[in-house]
């Protein structure tokens, strides 16, 4: 059973996020993490890729770091593109940098659910999202993913901003 979040909760997180540290970012252009990173960069987010095997190199023009502790702040969100059992260790590393980053959110990707990691993050006062993709959620709430026939579960009664400028996500 997928965890459930309100549209307002997800929209609030996305509106208050500028910089995302993506743990498990891949340099392979057909991997899901590359898709998400490409999309988020295109939509105005700063994305810092974390991948020990590629430290010092670049993905999509962004410098890759080997670990969260090496990333200069600020970081609003840590996005976990790793297996669920890796999540608690990543959250522990993230919490160690919480004040320096100004960290607000731990986000776990589609298929990543780990209640231990979620509880650690909640106890530290962070927002937690599991089993979701920020690319899909941004596309859904802006309206853009409707172009793919996806059921957004949103009704719009006002003219949204053009989708490339955030669409409905940029209201309110």
């Amino acid at each position, binding site marked *: 059973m997928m965890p459930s979040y309100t549209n307002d909760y997800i929209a609030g997180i996305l509106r208050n996020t500028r910089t995302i540290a993506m743990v498990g970012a891949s340099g392979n252009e057909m991997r899901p993490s590359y898709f998400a990173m490409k999309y988020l960069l295109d939509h105005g987010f700063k994305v810092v890729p974390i991948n020990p095997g590629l430290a010092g190199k670049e993905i999509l023009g962004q410098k890759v770091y080997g670990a969260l502790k090496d990333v200069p702040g600020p970081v609003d969100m840590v996005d976990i593109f790793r297996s669920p059992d890796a999540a608690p260790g990543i959250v522990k590393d993230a919490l160690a940098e919480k004040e320096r980053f100004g960290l607000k959110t731990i986000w776990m990707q*589609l298929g990543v659910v780990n209640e231990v990691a979620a509880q650690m993050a909640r106890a530290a006062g962070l927002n937690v999202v599991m089993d979701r993709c920020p690319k899909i959620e941004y596309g859904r709430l802006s309206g853009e993913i409707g*172009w793919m026939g996806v*059921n957004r579960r949103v009704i719009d009664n006002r003219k949204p901003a053009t989708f490339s400028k955030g669409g409905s996500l940029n209201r309110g």
Partner: protein
Amino acid sequence: MSDYGFDTLAVHAGAHPDPATGARSTPIYQTTSFVFESADQAAALFNLQVFGNIYTRIMNPTTAVLEERIAALEGGRVGLATASGHAAQVIAFHTLMEPGCEILAARQLYGGSLNQLSQSFAKFNWGAKFVDATEPENFRRELNEKTRCIFIESIANPGGFITDIEAIAAIAHSAGIPLIVDNTFATPYLIRPIEWGADVVVHSATKYLNGHGNSIAGLIVDSGKFDWGQNNKFPTLTEPCPSYHGMRFWETFGDMAFGVACRVLGLRDLGPALSPMNAFLTLTGIETLPLRMQKHCDNALEVARWLKRHPKVAWVNYAGLEDDPCYNLHRTYCPKGAGSVFTFGVTGGYEAGVALVNNVRLFSHLANVGDTRSLIIHPASTTHRQLDDDKKRAAGAGPEVIRVSIGIEDAKDIIADLDQALNAAAD
């Protein structure tokens, strides 16, 4: 949005005031193509890394509103529009089937679907087996290692037979394969197959969804609930895709994988795209679906009850009648109504059937169903003319059989027209 009711979704789901102009009704984006912002953005679009419009064969902003609306009404994850209901079936099966695989289908299907599955699909080396769906266990008996899906109609054409979706879904899932339901005759107003366990829903939107007999259109809804990775039966979804640089749909798109693959493989390569104009007409029709569908059903029940008492009528097959074999399934699956297409037999046989269609003055004699207008056809002299009498009877098209699709006119006028035509036919 799950809080919004069905009637609200029928009007609003998928639509938004146009971002460029504020137009409230969905604009008809009558264009083949969409300009790229840059070479980099074009590459990202073709790689499926960003969402956006490329070419109307694959997606179009008008059509997308229709796609999202049907997904919302069916309670699914993704919708996809096609040029016809038949095209929707081709695309859905193309995503699931490999040469040598089989579709296990109900015998109670629209005749056009029987032809598509048994004749045309054989050219792709897709097999098809048909079983009597009145007994769900018949499906279990015909499952084998080559079976890739079960295909049924929620309310079957032409008999108005109602299918036990939940029981058949359980049989499909026990074999690790999806249940595909053609929901054309019920529409999501009467039955939402996904709530009963269906994994994919297909429509001929030409019928009640459009409802006005002015466009041919098809739709696919992916429930997002089927686990495509549970076995190795669906390589299109789970294996690296050569035409997308080795991307795997199931890994990359998760619960949208089937719907996305239908679009970017099926529509892209097979080509049966819906025109934006027809998408607009279908969208406009859907806004009044709940009102029309209830009126269709109420009229059909009144007409069926009246026919049952008519001396020139031998029998009436309508699941809404208390003594019909499908009455209990109707109360379980679609208590709001049993649809508005049904068959009845005239006492005078073939000649009486021909005379009836020749004498109606309000009914239209044609081969469609699900129109605002009441429609009538005598299958033995038209759609099933090429069959001998035994085969006609086996197909539910015996010489005395009349099929009607009851419209949304005044019931008293529909009844009066049938009455004068039945009496004239007997003279």
